[in-house]
C-alpha cells in the first residue's frame, strides 16, 4: 500500500511525574526523554508499521531541532518530505505524564503546517492531520482520504469529500457538528470505545499497566484508516484500530509499543 500523511510535528520533551503540579508547587520528574511527536508523526509511524512504509509531508524550521526531528523520524521508518516556511522555528512541546499515564501538553510556538499543492497522485491512502487548504485538496487525489477532526475549519474550507473523519469525543476542539461531507465519522471515547456513524463500538481492554496515553488516539485513527483503505470490513477495521490504540498505552512515549502488522 502506498500511504502518506500530511501533518504537523513538534519536538516534545517528555517528563514522567508523580502528579501534575498544582499551582505554585514543584514536582520532580522520574524519567525524561525527547522525541518528535504530534499528530503527523504518530499517525505516520503507525501507518509505516502496518503498511511497511509511510511518507510524511510536514514542515520544520531550518534549525537544529528540525534536523534532529527529521533524522529521528527517518530512523523510525518514516519517509519525510520537509518544507521550511520562511522565518519559522520548529515547534516544541512539553508533555507531563502522570502516574496514571495521562498526558498533559504545553506547546511552544506556532504549528508549522505543510503547504500545498503536494505531489499526492497515485497514493492508496492519505491521512490529513493538518495543513493548508491546497494541501488537503491535493490529498483528495488519493484513493482513500482520512482526516482528523481537529482541523475542521480547513476541512470545511476545502470542501473535499472524505472517506473517513476520525477524532476524540472528549476533546472540545474536536466536537463535530455533522457539517462535513464524510462517508464515515468515528469518534473515540477512551475505554468506552466510541461511535462509528452513530453506532457504538467497543474498546479493546487496555494493557495491565497503562504507562502513557500519548499517541493512543492518533494510533487508533491511523490503524483505522489503514484497514479501511486496504478493504477491511468496518467491524474488522475498528477491531484493529482499537488494538492499535490500546497497544500504545503500554509503552513509554508514542513509539515504543505501537502495533506492528503481524501482532
Amino acid at each position, binding site marked *: 500500500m502506498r500511504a502518506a500523511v500530511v501533518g504537523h510535528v513538534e519536538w516534545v520533551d517528555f517528563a514522567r511525574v508523580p502528579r501534575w503540579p498544582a499551582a505554585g508547587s514543584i514536582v520532580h520528574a522520574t524519567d525524561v526523554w525527547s522525541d518528535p511527536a504530534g499528530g503527523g508523526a504518530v499517525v505516520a509511524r503507525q501507518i509505516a508499521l502496518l503498511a511497511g512504509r509511510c511518507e510524511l509531508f510536514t514542515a520544520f524550521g*531550518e534549525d537544529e531541532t528540525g534536523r534532529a526531528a527529521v533524522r529521528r523520524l*527517518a530512523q523510525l521508518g518514516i*519517509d519525510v*518530505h*520537509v518544507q521550511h516556511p520562511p522565518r519559522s522555528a520548529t515547534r516544541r512541546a512539553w508533555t507531563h505524564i502522570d502516574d496514571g499515564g495521562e498526558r498533559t501538553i504545553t506547546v511552544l510556538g506556532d504549528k508549522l503546517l505543510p503547504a500545498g499543492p503536494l505531489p499526492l497522485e497515485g497514493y492508496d491512502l492519505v491521512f490529513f492531520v493538518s495543513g493548508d487548504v491546497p494541501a488537503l485538496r491535493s490529498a483528495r487525489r488519493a484513493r482513500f482520504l482520512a482526516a482528523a477532526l481537529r482541523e475542521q475549519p480547513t476541512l470545511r474550507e476545502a470542501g473535499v469529500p472524505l472517506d473517513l473523519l476520525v477524532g476524540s469525543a472528549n476533546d472540545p476542539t474536536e466536537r463535530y457538528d455533522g457539517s462535513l461531507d464524510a462517508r464515515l465519522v468515528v469518534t473515540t471515547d477512551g475505554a468506552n470505545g466510541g461511535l462509528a456513524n452513530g453506532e457504538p463500538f467497543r474498546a479493546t481492554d487496555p494493557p495491565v499497566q497503562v504507562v502513557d496515553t500519548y499517541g493512543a488516539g492518533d494510533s487508533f485513527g491511523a490503524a483505522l484508516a489503514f484497514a479501511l483503505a486496504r478493504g477491511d470490513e468496518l467491524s474488522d477495521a475498528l477491531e484493529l484500530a482499537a488494538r492499535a490504540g490500546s497497544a500504545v498505552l503500554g509503552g513509554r512515549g508514542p513509539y515504543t509499543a505501537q502495533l506492528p502488522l503481524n501482532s
Partner: protein
Amino acid sequence: MKALALEHLQEALLGEGGVQGDRRFYFVGETGRLISNKDFPAFQLIRASYDDAVDVLTLTLADGREIAGRVERGEEVTTSFHRRPRHARLVIGPWSRALSEVVGEPLRLVEPSTSGVDRGRNGAATLLGTASLGALGSTLGVEAVDGRRFRMNFGIEGLGAHEEDAWIGRRIAIGDAVVIPHGNVGRCVVTKQNPDTAVSDLDTLGGLAEYRGDVETTEPLPFGIHAGVVRSGRVRVGDVVALA
C-alpha cells in the same frame, strides 16, 4: 551522490575504491543507464547527505525541500555506468519519485555493489592543482574559474599551472595515503555549467582546446589527473602533497 551538488569535507578516508562514501548512490533511467548532470544540469543544485550510522539518506532540493528516509535495499539490477555494466541494488524509498518529478522523467536510485568512481581503481582519486584554474581563466579572459566545475576530489595549492600532469606514473603522498596517477582527466560539457545556477555560462572546452589541444594526454581536453590508491589513509584539508 554521483552528479549532485558537491560536498566539501574537512577530512576523508581515501581507499582503493576512492574517497569513502563518495558516489555511494546514483540515479539511472528506465533502461538502467546512469543519469547525470549531463542529462539534467539541475542535478547539481540538489544536495545529498547520508548518515552511515543510522542508514538515513537526505536529499535537499533546490527550493529547500528535504526528502529523508531510511535506506532499504531492493532487488539487484545491472546498470549501465558510462557504458559499462555495473551491479547495483535498487534503493526503496521516496527519492526516486521525488527526483523523477523534478526532472520529468522516471528515475531510479541505486546503490552499486562496488565503488562508483568513473575510471575504476586506476581512477579512485582525482587531483587538480589550483594554479591550473588560473591558467584556464587567463585563456578565457575571466578573473577566476570555479574549481567545482571540475568536480575533483582534491585541490592542491602551491604548484605551477598543470604541474600535476608531470606526476603521472609517480608515487604521490597525500596526507596519510599514497596514490599513483595513471592519466589525465578529459573534460566534458558538464564543466561549462555554473555549479550555483546549473546554467552553461563558460566555454571551458573551448578554452582547453585553445591552450591544451596539443598536449600529449591520455584523454582529450585534459584538466587534472586521476590516480589509483596504493596506500589507504586519511586526508585532511591542509595536508602536504608531495612525491613519495
